[in-house]
């Protein structure tokens, strides 16, 4: 079963890194610092996370602390009760 980290990385690579090798990001890569995220893409990421993991990301949770890397997203999802395998 794919881990949460793999699921998120797969989305990020297929959506934001089309044409680039997946090894260019790791779990610690900052989306902001690497220029992967802009005002449109953050909405795409939120839409994906809410749809795939069944969470509701509030406005106050839409902060880099929670969503600016694969590692941070995983930590945030765990705080919302989503397991490491992506199941609630």
């Amino acid at each position: 079963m794919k881990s949460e980290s793999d699921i998120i990385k797969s989305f990020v690579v297929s959506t934001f890194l089309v044409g680039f090798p997946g090894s260019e990001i790791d779990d610690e890569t900052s989306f902001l610092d690497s220029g992967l995220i802009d005002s449109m893409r953050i909405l795409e990421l939120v839409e994906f996370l809410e749809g795939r993991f069944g969470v509701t990301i509030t406005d106050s949770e839409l902060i880099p602390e929670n969503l600016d890397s694969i590692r941070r997203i995983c930590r945030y999802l765990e705080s919302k009760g989503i397991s490491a395998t992506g199941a609630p």
Partner: protein
Amino acid sequence: MVTFNREVLRIDPERETARLRDFIRHQVLSVFKRKGAVVGLSGGVDSAVLACLCVHALGSDRVLGVVLPEKESSPESLDLAMRQAALLGVRTEVVDITALLEAFGVYASRNAVIREALPDFDAARDRARIALPGNVLSRAAFNVYTLKITTAREELSFRLKPDQLRAIFAAQNIKQRTRMIRLYYCAEKLHYLVGGTTNRTEMDQGFFVKYGDGGVDIEPMAHLYKTQVFQLAEHVGVIEEIRSRAPSPDTWPGGVTDEEFYFRMPYHTLDLLLFAWTEGIPADDVARVLELTGEQVERAFRDFRSKKSATWDLRELPPNLVAQGTALASAVEPNPSEQS
């Protein structure tokens, strides 16, 4: 390295005016070989400064001020644009572009998206706008646009889906692109060129519409930060009401400032931080001068990096094989007689 302090963006307005006068005159008359300049007057400080500079460079009889309001423009914009033009003694042409925008479906398609969020939205009664989160220095937040609607009773906020936001921007950007069409129509009839009003803050951070307000012949102020444009404004004769007006794209009936819509901080702070980032001033040095924390400065720098990166294509010519130096080699078959 530049010494960074709060006065680092202070300019000599007299010297800068003379430099820009010479630049505009040379570009219009010698490089482009045109008879004058068209300036789209929005009622804002950038276009007012450009108009003043063009008159200074060319004379008022070689400058045409074109005012292009639409039904969602602030009524104050038209009044201020006309008063500035009258002060300069330039001819003006006023064309209400509402019908053109309606024909393009701008209002209908944008409002349809708004009604997906608020089915009872009535454009005649309610005021809509989109805005980014508050001051980037106050809190860390992604640049997520929120749709804000002011009804008779309350102010409502909605987070949009990506396709909704794209649809809204695509519709709204037609406003600037329609203005570009009209400015070029006026310019080409007169053998004038179209003067651009993009300042350095906007140019660097991508705050203009591709082939909209970015579709011009010359950009005389692209080296000046917004606060430097304001310094120039006082010197070249921009009326006080324009100088004291909060900068705004003036494209939303709900009214939104540049700060709320894009930059997330006031210009007097933004420009100093942007200059520091551009010049590679260490964040700690900037923080000390501006009495901010290092984290706040780093947050601003990250925001600049993100916006500049995301808008790279606004500042480049369309990629093509000629520019890449490979076009001819692959397009032309070798001539057999040249082969031995």
